């Protein structure tokens, strides 16, 4: 499917802005069986910032996102090589427990996936299994705090025992964001979090992302160029399994340096 030629990445200057590096990626490649899906990706991802991964379907952006919390471990025949450090600690180290890793690297998917439980239990689930609350009142606090941060508290505070699956799509997405926040993550991964939402619900999620970036390192995969432009500070363009270009979002969308980036974001035949 992919040619094996390695494409050199174009890095813009000052991609990180003033933010420190949160995730340091060096030479990460991913293969599924015989098929290589990602080729030697190297990239620094800033903290307190939103980084967008864009590119056509099958370009490797979601594969790369799944490396961040070792979701590829769950896929039979998947092989990940290279180094991926969060705060300087190698996450592919055997000593790292993926369950603990996934608490600090939360993930939000395309389709909201609340547990078939109450709104309260959806949020309380993580803190309970990770032992993050020692009493009921402490747990109540974590739930309220997380729902507030996810911008959902006002809408659900009077019906915390209702099933999470009964909420609207946009509310469900904010619920799973609250669920991710509840276990105090460092990094939040979002894989097309708004693709199933209407424009109003999308705007609420985007507003939420903008607020959350103050405290977290957020990485978002999106097919909407406008969304990448609206929410992110740094943008990385993937094509055919390679990272083609990385730069400040404003530069990528006004003056990309690579013709493939240009063709993709302007909607041309590449």
């Amino acid at each position: 499917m992919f040619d094996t030629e390695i494409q050199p990445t174009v890095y813009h200057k000052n991609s990180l802005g003033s933010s420190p590096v949160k995730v340091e990626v060096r030479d990460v490649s991913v293969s599924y069986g015989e098929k290589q899906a990602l080729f030697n990706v190297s990239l620094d991802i800033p903290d307190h910032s939103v980084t967008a991964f864009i590119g056509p379907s099958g370009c490797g952006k979601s594969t790369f996102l799944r490396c961040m919390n070792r979701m590829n471990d769950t896929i039979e025949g998947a092989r990940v090589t290279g180094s991926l450090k969060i705060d300087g600690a190698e996450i592919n180290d055997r000593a790292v427990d993926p369950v603990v890793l996934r608490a600090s690297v939360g993930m939000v998917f395309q389709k909201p996936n609340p547990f078939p439980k109450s709104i309260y239990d959806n949020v309380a689930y993580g803190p309970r299994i990770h032992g993050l609350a020692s009493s009921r009142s402490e747990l109540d606090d974590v739930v309220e705090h997380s729902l507030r941060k996810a911008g959902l508290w006002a809408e659900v505070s009077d019906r915390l025992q209702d099933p999470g699956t009964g909420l609207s799509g946009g509310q469900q997405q904010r619920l799973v964001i609250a669920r991710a926040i509840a276990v105090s993550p460092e990094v939040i991964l979002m894989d097309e979090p708004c693709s199933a939402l209407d424009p109003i619900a999308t705007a609420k999620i985007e507003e939420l992302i903008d607020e959350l970036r103050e405290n977290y390192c957020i990485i978002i995969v999106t097919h909407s160029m406008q969304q990448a432009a609206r929410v992110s500070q740094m943008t990385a363009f993937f094509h055919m399994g390679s990272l083609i270009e990385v730069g400040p979002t404003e530069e990528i969308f006004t003056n990309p340096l690579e013709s493939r980036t240009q063709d993709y974001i302007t909607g041309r035949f590449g």
Partner: protein
Amino acid sequence: MALSKHTHIVTAYGEELDKLADELARMGGLVEMQLEAAVAAVVRRDASVIPEVRKREVQVNAMQVDIEKRVIRLFALRQPLATDLRMTISSLKIASDLERVGDLAKNIAYRSKKLVGFAPLELMHSVERLGVIVGKQLHEVLDALSSFDIEPAVRVWRNDDEVDDHYNGLIREMLLAMSKDPSLVGPGAHILFVAKNLERVGDHATNIAEALHYIVTGEALESTDHPPA
């Protein structure tokens, strides 16, 4: 359009951008005609072209409005990015510069009516020369625009010094002549305005050069692009 070797997946979008470039080229052509007619009218002290100039002025203004509408439509419906974004936003600026040039040309042409009653001025060859230099600047930058070629655009940008030098020389000569012979004050005042208007046309040509440089490179023309003084 030479900005990308690939065409848009949505054909209609590509066509709208192409049409924008075409309209700019048409407006540029019209404005060039206006300037040429205006300079000739003044130099020959022949006001007969004024009705035609006035007619074209209406067309030029309508074209600016049309280009503005196209730009607004592109932003609202297509959300252009990268080169398309730079092309769209710059078209707005270029159309506004061209409209100003059209206006200045019209003002120059109107001066011919005032000059008819006066004896021919010796300095007129200098006005003609300024008109030729400025006309060339405008022509070259519009040529560069139609081919998205920045090299001639940078040349035009640098050449503005020549326009300014010639303009300053002309003003000096005119003032000197007027102080020696007060009967020249009447036509001289009109010539000063004509010269000033031509110099302004030159400035608009450099604005267009800057816009074109931005369209093609994404960067502003820097003073480092200027030759050492």
